[in-house]
């Protein structure tokens, strides 16, 4: 109980420190990257002045600019509450969610908005996520267990998981696929075949799930020339993640299992079960 109170006090202190850093302004300049690759339009920046309040997010400011200054600005967004992961973009050079970044958190009178790096560019602030989602799909992001046959309902069974079991993967299941980690990763920037932090963290998410039985297959998927060992722990993915997923942690833990540093608790549980049966 005292630990929980201490944790809450610590979080409250952090929040207050965060609020102290806020900068009050009545207006800002948005410097927006503009280009349309389909028409061959050259890349340039448009600067627009936007009125802001303490709670204005970068997405609010962009939508104001789109609504009242220039209707042709291309942005992708949906939920406006950091749940859908659509509005990822580089804000002042760092990948962030526009709906989750308040203008008052950013220094300077000019805020630069650019499309996410490492994604093929479409138009203005919109990028193509096809390859990113392909990498995600390659990791087979679903539970694989012969007792959980979705085609035959009679085979379905209940899986028991303790809260401790859930804690091992829950953090990684908070990923909203916004692409901020993929954009910040220096390995993705150099290697097009590298799955990226998002996909590898998902590989760990299912690997660590006690319901999943495809451990060997998952390890084979990531153990490739362009696979998990191309990650050299720059930590940028975890720095920019807006949901606290910490992809770098999942990737290093998975590497630890592959190198034999960490004990695979699923294997131990399996062995125990076999011994019990004997």
């Amino acid at each position, binding site marked *: 109980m005292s630990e929980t109170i201490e944790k809450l006090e610590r979080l409250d202190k952090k929040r207050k420190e965060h609020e102290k850093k806020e900068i009050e302004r009545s207006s800002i300049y948005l410097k927006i990257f503009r280009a349309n690759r389909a028409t061959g339009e050259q890349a340039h920046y448009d600067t627009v002045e936007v009125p802001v309040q303490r709670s204005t997010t970068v997405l609010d400011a962009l939508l104001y600019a789109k609504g009242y200054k220039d209707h042709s600005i291309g942005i992708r967004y949906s939920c406006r509450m950091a749940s859908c992961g659509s509005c990822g973009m580089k804000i002042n050079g760092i990948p962030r969610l526009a709906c989750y970044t308040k203008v008052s958190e950013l220094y300077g009178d000019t805020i630069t908005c650019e499309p996410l790096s490492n994604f093929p560019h479409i138009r203005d602030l919109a990028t193509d996520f096809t390859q990113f989602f392909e990498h995600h799909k390659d990791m087979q992001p679903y539970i694989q267990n012969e007792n959980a046959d979705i085609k035959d309902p009679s085979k379905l069974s209940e899986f028991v998981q303790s809260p401790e079991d859930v804690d091992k993967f829950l953090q990684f299941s908070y990923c909203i696929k916004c692409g901020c980690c993929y954009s910040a990763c*220096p390995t993705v920037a150099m290697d097009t075949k590298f799955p990226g932090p998002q996909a590898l963290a998902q590989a760990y998410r299912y690997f660590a799930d006690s319901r999943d039985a495809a451990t060997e297959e998952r390890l084979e998927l990531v153990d490739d020339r362009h696979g998990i060992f191309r990650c050299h722990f720059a*930590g940028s993915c975890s720095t920019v993640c807006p949901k606290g997923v910490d992809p770098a942690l999942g990737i290093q833990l998975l590497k630890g299992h592959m190198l034999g540093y960490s004990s695979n608790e699923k294997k131990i549980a399996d062995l125990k079960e076999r011994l019990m049966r004997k």
Partner: protein
Amino acid sequence: MEATDRNNREGLKAWLNPSRYGAERISYWLQRLTGVGLLGYFIGHVYETSSLTQGPDAWAAMLELTQTPMGHMILLLVIGMSTFHSANGIRLIFTEGGKGLGKPGRPDYPYDAVSLNYRQKSGIWIALILAAAAMLFGASVLFGGE
């Protein structure tokens, strides 16, 4: 439209600019930079020692080059690079095996990544301090006089 037309990859620029993402990214940059530097030194060292095959005079002439202030500065840089690369490399051997990173949990706002903890930052600072100390010791030996 070809995908290459829309290419927006950062490429080499991504690791040449470490300023945006914190201490771990700077350490990543330094590890690569010192690695490339040490590779350059290794090639130079092989070239230097290969002069032995041309006789004692050629070897002595080559050694003369390293006994200049510029030669000493290069050696100092090599001492710093090798110390940082080794110390930070030892940290990375543990880190990349999942050691010293903490455990997955339930993240609370404002999110602080568990993996980018004080152990990592301390490890980076220790590597930097060791490199500086080794360079100071090297400087005292190389420039300390007779």
